[in-house]
């Protein structure tokens, strides 16, 4: 669009002026019609009022209405149109002037643009030159670098070539060796295969033999197992019998031991009772029927920690009880049990001196 405007500035301006003119005309026409519409509306209102009045009161025959055209008003209207015409002309003149001015400005702008463009081109040229210069320098160094690199590359290529040749030679050598090896390997493989075949055959033979042997063995084992089973059954029965016997004898032994311990316990308590009796003495005259239970608390070393005189009969006097208690203390240390497990911390026995 801009390019179009730049290319055809006069035609554009003319078109613009034409459009503006048309626009002005249209605007003016639209304003007039709105004015007349307003008046028409007023007249209608008045008639409506009249109609209402008539409707409300009575029908009155209206006299014919006439419009008197005011010459002043027409004049005014003409003047106003003329003013508008002149204003339009003025506007056109102003627009033409403006267009000229604009054209002038555009020309100048174009000139300035050209100048600036020239300047810019110059500057671009300079920078391009500069760039070229540096580029040349860079290229120079690059070329040098490439040269050395090329030299290097060539050297390495040379080397590679030599290497590859050497490698080739080696490869060939290796290949021959490999071939030799492969040959050997193939030989070996065949030998091995043969051997394996042999071994396999041997194994098969052995396996057959083994199976036969195993079979035989299994049979023997089965017999053996059968035999063992029988023996085991016998043994189990014997063991059970033995166990039963053992249990019986253990129970018997336990009973015996229990009885033994019981009798030992009796002996133990009797030995304590006897020692207390030995140590019994009193200046008091004691009834021969006096009797009490002595409840002695002792330490494992037989030292007496407490003595309680309980369950006395009616013959047991205070002196009897005192003397009994003293006899216990006098019996320290109390006799040790014949078996350690028989030790009792609290011992109670009937006491009758």
């Amino acid at each position, binding site marked *: 669009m801009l390019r179009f405007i730049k290319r055809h500035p006069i035609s554009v301006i003319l078109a613009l002026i034409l459009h503006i003119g048309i626009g002005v005309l249209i605007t003016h026409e639209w304003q007039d019609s709105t004015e007349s519409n307003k008046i028409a509306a007023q007249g209608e209102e008045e008639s409506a009022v009249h109609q209402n009045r008539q409707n409300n009161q009575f029908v009155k025959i209206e006299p014919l209405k006439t419009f008197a055209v005011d010459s002043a008003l027409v004049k005014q209207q003409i003047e106003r149109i003329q003013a508008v015409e002149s204003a339009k002309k003025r506007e056109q003149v102003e627009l033409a002037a403006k267009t000229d001015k604009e054209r002038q400005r555009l020309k100048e702008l174009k000139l300035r643009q050209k100048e600036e463009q020239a300047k810019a081109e110059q500057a671009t040229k300079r920078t391009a030159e500069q760039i070229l210069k540096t580029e040349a320098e860079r290229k120079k160094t690059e070329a040098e670098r490439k040269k050395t690199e090329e030299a290097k590359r060539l050297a390495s290529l040379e080397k590679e070539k030599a290497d590859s040749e050497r490698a080739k030679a080696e490869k060939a050598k290796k290949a021959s060796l490999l071939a030799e090896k492969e040959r050997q390997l193939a030989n070996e493989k065949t030998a091995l295969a043969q051997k394996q075949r042999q071994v396999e055959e041997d194994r098969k033979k052995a396996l057959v033999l083994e199976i036969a042997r195993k079979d035989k063995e299994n049979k023997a084992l089965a017999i053996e197992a059968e035999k063992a089973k029988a023996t085991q059954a016998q043994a189990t029965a014997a063991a059970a019998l033995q166990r039963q016997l053992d249990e019986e004898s253990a129970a018997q032994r336990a009973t015996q031991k229990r009885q033994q311990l019981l009798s030992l316990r009796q002996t133990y308590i009797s030995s304590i009772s006897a020692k207390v009796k030995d140590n019994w003495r009193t200046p*008091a005259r004691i009834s021969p029927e006096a009797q009490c239970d002595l409840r002695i608390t002792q330490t494992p070393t037989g030292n007496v920690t407490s003595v309680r005189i309980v369950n006395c009969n009616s013959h047991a006097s205070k002196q009897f009880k005192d003397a009994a208690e003293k006899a216990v*203390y*006098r019996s320290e240390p109390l006799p040790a049990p014949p078996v350690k497990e028989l030790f009792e911390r609290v011992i109670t026995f009937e006491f009758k001196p």
Partner: protein
Amino acid sequence: MTSVNFKFVTFFQHTAQIRRLLLLSITAFSMSLFTVSAMAELTIEISEGYDNAIPIAIVPFGYEVQSTMTPVSSKTVASSQSPEDLAKIIAADLRRSGRFNPLSNAQLPAFPTDVDALDYEQWRALDLDNLLMGKIIDEGNGFYQIEMRFMDVLRKNQVIGKRWNHIPKSNLRQIAHQMSDLIYQELTGVRGAFNTQISYVTLRKIEGKRHYTLEVADSDGFNPQPILKSNQPIMSPSWSPDGKKLAYVSFENGRSQIFIQSLDGKYRENVAQFKGINGAPAWSPDGTKLAMTLSKDGSADIYVMELKTGNLQQLTRKYSIETEAAWAENGQSLFFNSDRRGQPQVFQVFLETGEINRVTYDGNYNANPEISPDGRYLSMVHSNSGFHIGLLDLYTNEFRVLTDTFLDESPTFSPNGEMILYAMNRNGEGQLAVVAIDGKTSQTLKVKDGEVREPAWGPYLSH
């Protein structure tokens, strides 16, 4: 208590028959009265002790003088300055009972006077059960404070703790006997009879003349006090139940008469001066009556006199000799001896009904009955051959001979019934002896220069 007739006979003859024949002639025999100035203490010999006497430690009492300046602190003074060796008195008491064996001072490992100073193990090692220790504190002005601690060595505690204040020197021995009593009671369950008195009659022959003295002494023979002195026989002392008076037979008026005399000598009364024999007085347990032997109606019979009125109740009416009455402990009957069956045996007469039962059957001679304070035992002079003290258990009728001494007579029970004091004859001289009723211990009491007879053990002292 012994009867006049039997007692005098035993001085000269040793058979009951002769004694009985000589009865009347002796009562007519008179002697002149005279005073014996010297009082000899009885010495006691323990002839037999228990086999199983209990060892006991009686530690010498500490002696302290209470300073008048600082009454709180007191100074310990060597016990040799102590006014009385209380430990010695107590040890002797306990030894005499036969049930204890007090250690000698040399055997004691220490002399503690206070609980703090007591090492129980040290004493237990001596096989001891008990230990007594204490202090005499001199309050000044001849008065003392006494403290006792009786310890249980086995159970490690104090059994008895007691203190006496303001005791005059003359009473210190009595306090010691009280301590013995407490210990004895604690250990035997029986009240001790150490703090009691005995009465007896001593006979000294000076220049061919006989000197009789009725004496009262402590149970251990110490503190002898003369009650009556006479050159005529004094016999059969009997204690009033309150321990303040004695009834006895005195020949001072030329024949046997019964007197009652207070121990302090302020009171003396001739209560029986009937024709014939007035003998063998015995105080009733309630102290209101006196049983006696009177022969005012011909033969010797048992009478009971109401002391207030002097009224007599005759309990026996036989031609035979009935004498030596002893009261049952309940005061409702009397035991006496009678030869109504030929030989003297003990009978019992009931005051209410006059019913008479024979009590003794063992042996051919049982006389001079005495009843134990609990009424269970009857002691007597028993003879099958020789005269010994016999004991009959009235509950079980079990009879035992307790003594093996010679010519025993006049048994008398200690107030606790544990011992019997009696008279016997050794080397031709009268001595006293004590035997336990179980017969397990005995001892003799004798005076230095004379004979001692007619013992009677007094009641408990009232304090």
